[in-house]
Structure formats: structure tokens, C-alpha cells
């Protein structure tokens, strides 16, 4: 029986709901990833040395590197749940728009990264004695846009490498070089919020981030269908 198909937006919302519910069920995992990211922050501090001035100056870099590393885990996980009992194949058999699957997953992964960032930032603030010179709310745009920059293409590369045995190795290898623009822009804009932005450069960096997100989310949405088909 061919029922009327719901619109794309409703499907995307349904996918997000499903992905976040699955992730919520594995809440120990999310907490573990947060702890992992925090551990990385500690490692950076030990590697660089206890000079608070240096740590404070480069804090944004450490935070984003920690988030990047943790993101490879959330991304591989988001596809492991799809392949372990054939859920993705089942999804493809339903009359669900493939783009809904991509955008739903990418948005869910973005949300997860934002949550991770919200766990990591306060810890970084304590460790590196940070304060938000431009106001706390201004941290949100770089965090959200930066998370989107990692999650968007990341979801596609995770799908690409889902059936490769060495996914843990391949995903970082594919992801890291191509998110350099997002990393640079996210770190810069976060830094400016933390340390002050006397020359008003932040908007340019946020535009870079937003453009990156736009380009790569569109490209991923276009190519996702090809990637998941057998």
C-alpha cells in the first residue's frame, strides 16, 4: 500500500528524534566521550607546560582539537548503530527520502557535538583561567557553526567508511585534512570571544565558517544517496 509520504522536514525531524533517542539510551557513551575530551585537555596542558599565559592564549585551539578527536568517536558510533542490526538497510527499504537520512543524522551529530562542547568549555575555563571578554553568549555561534562544520562532512565520511574494517583509522584520515578551514575559523572566532575582538574580525571568521558549512552540507546532501546504496 502506498501511503502519502510525509514532507522532507517531517522526515528529517523524525530521523533526528530517532538518532538522539538512540544516543540518549547509550548515555554512558556520551559521558565517556566528554571525559575523553577533558582528558585530552589535560594532556595538552602537560605537554605544553604549566605556563598559564601560554595556555590561556591557545585555549581555543586545545578545546577544538579535543572536540575534533571526540567527534571521530561520535561519528563512527552514529553509523555503528545503523549497521549492527541492519537498521540502515531497513531504513532504505522504507519510502524515506535519502536526504532526510543524511540531514537528520548530520543535525543530530551536530547537536551531540554542541552538547560535548558545553561539557568541555566550563572545564577548559577552569583549567586555563578563561573569561569571555566579548560576552558568554557570543560563544554560541562559533560552537554551533564549528560543530556543524565537523558533523556535516563527518557524517558523510562516516557513511563512506562504515563498511571498511579499519574505520577507526580511515575516518580521521579522511576527515582531518578537509576540515582544516572549519578548524581554523572555529578556533579563531572562539579565541576572539575569549580574549576580546578590538578590530571586529569575528564576523569575518563566522562568515568563513558559515560558508564552509553551506558548501559542504550541500555537497554531502547531494552525494549521500550514492554512498549508502549497495
Amino acid at each position, binding site marked *: *500500500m*502506498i*501511503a*502519502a*509520504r*510525509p514532507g522532507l522536514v*517531517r*522526515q528529517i525531524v*523524525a*530521523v533526528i*528524534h*530517532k538518532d538522539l*533517542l*538512540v544516543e540518549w*539510551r*547509550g548515555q554512558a557513551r556520551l559521558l565517556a566521550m566528554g571525559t575523553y575530551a577533558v582528558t585530552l585537555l589535560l594532556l595538552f596542558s602537560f605537554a605544553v607546560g604549566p605556563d598559564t599565559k601560554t595556555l590561556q592564549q591557545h585555549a581555543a585551539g586545545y578545546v577544538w582539537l579535543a572536540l575534533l578527536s571526540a567527534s571521530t568517536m561520535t561519528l563512527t558510533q552514529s553509523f555503528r*548503530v545503523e549497521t*549492527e*542490526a*541492519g*537498521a540502515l*538497510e*531497513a*531504513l*532504505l*527499504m*522504507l*519510502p*524515506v527520502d535519502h536526504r*532526510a537520512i543524511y540531514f537528520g543524522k548530520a543535525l543530530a551529530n551536530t547537536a551531540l557535538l554542541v552538547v560535548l562542547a558545553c561539557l568541555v568549555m566550563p572545564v577548559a575555563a577552569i583549567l586555563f583561567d578563561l573569561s569571555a571578554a566579548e560576552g558568554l553568549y557570543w560563544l554560541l555561534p562559533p560552537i554551533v557553526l564549528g560543530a556543524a562544520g565537523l558533523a556535516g562532512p563527518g557524517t558523510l565520511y562516516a557513511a563512506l567508511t562504515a563498511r571498511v574494517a579499519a574505520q577507526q583509522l580511515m575516518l580521521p584520515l579522511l576527515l582531518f585534512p578537509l576540515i582544516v578551514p572549519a578548524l581554523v575559523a572555529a578556533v579563531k572566532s572562539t579565541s576572539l570571544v575569549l580574549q576580546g575582538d578590538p578590530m571586529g574580525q569575528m564576523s569575518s571568521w563566522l562568515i568563513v565558517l558559515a560558508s564552509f558549512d553551506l558548501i559542504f552540507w550541500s555537497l554531502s546532501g547531494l552525494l549521500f544517496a550514492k554512498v549508502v546504496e*549497495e
Partner: protein
Amino acid sequence: MEPPAVETSALGRRYGRRWALARVNLQVARGERLLIAGANGSGKSTLLRVLASLLAPSIGSARVFGHDVATEAGAVRERVALLTYTPGVYEDLSARENLRAQLRLLGRDDAPEALLERVGLELRDDPVRGYSAGMRKRLSFARLLMQRPGLALLDEPYGQLDPEGFKMVDGLVAELSQAGATVIMASHMVERAGALCDRGVLIDQGQVRWEGPGPQTARAWDAAHGGGR
């Protein structure tokens, strides 16, 4: 004249150098119940997956309700549901949550409870991860019923079930048939399934070697494999 439920023409599918299916010419009328019998590795699952449009034919063609499986996969999937050995669910969610998530994706807000009751899973609220093989099979059936397919493809429907479960499967096949669906099942249980089906085919090493009335499939099997099911 409406196209038949399934029509294949010189269908072949290979994996590398091995032909898993070859020279398959099959026609299944709407509302018919067909049994596909064959030994392990004979190509039964491959045939079902091609009909589900998950695998493209290597040569020849296959049409489901008139739609080509290679070029009109979307149209095929709207009308077909496949039951395989993987349940197609999220291990961390319960049966109810899995069904509800997929219902929501289909834009339907009917409750999954009735479906779960029908397959005997209504008392479970824990994650699928802890389910036995039999329970997973029942959940797969619930998912299939949820889709209300025009063509139901069942790959070893009796697998992992106990005699109670066998009766459930028989009942579900009858229900699907009554609702007007075409049912194609691949099964080792040639006697039980053969009694249920209008027609049967025997597949051996990817090729169809016998076609006839369902209840006679067991005899064809014996003839091909010298007894011993």
C-alpha cells in the same frame, strides 16, 4: 491489463566470478503465494534481494508490479517489504520504540501496540539488545506488517522460531494473503511452506529447475537432493 506482481526475464546476478543466479524466468501473479525452495547457497536470498531492489541484476531484468528494480528502485520499495535474518532495528531501543520511530518516519501516528500483540511481543519494554533470536524474528514480522506491503518477501520466515512461532507465521501469511498481498517465501521447510503456497519453484545453483503446485515442492526437493531434508 495490470502487470503481474513479479516478472523476471533471463535474470542473472554474479558475485565476482560466481553466478549466484542465472537464467531465471519467473512470473508471479498478484495475490499469489510462492515458495522458493533450495539448498543453502542456491541463490534464494539473492533472488529475494534483487526483487527488493537491494541488488541490481547483472544481466537480464526484474520487474515488480511493472517497475524495473534497477531503474525504479524507489517505486519498488514503496510496494515491497523484505524479511531477512537481520531484524533492521536499533539495539538500544525497545521493540515499541523501534516501531514507533519507523512509523514516525512514514508519517503515521498509529500505535505500534497492535502490531506487537499480533507477533507476541507486547510485554517487552527492554532494549532489543537483550532479545533472543526468536524475539528478533517476531519483531521483524511486526516491522513487515507495519509496512502493509503489496509484495511480502520472506527469507526463511520460520527460522529461529519454535512450533508456536511456526503457527504464528502460517497465520500471518494467511492474513497477508487475505489483505491482497502477494507473498514470496524462501524456506527450508518445504512441506509446511509448500502446503501454504499456491506454487513452488526449486532453485539449484542459481537456476530454476522445477516449477509446480506448492504442495508438490517437497517431492521435487527429494528428486533433486535424493531425500533427507
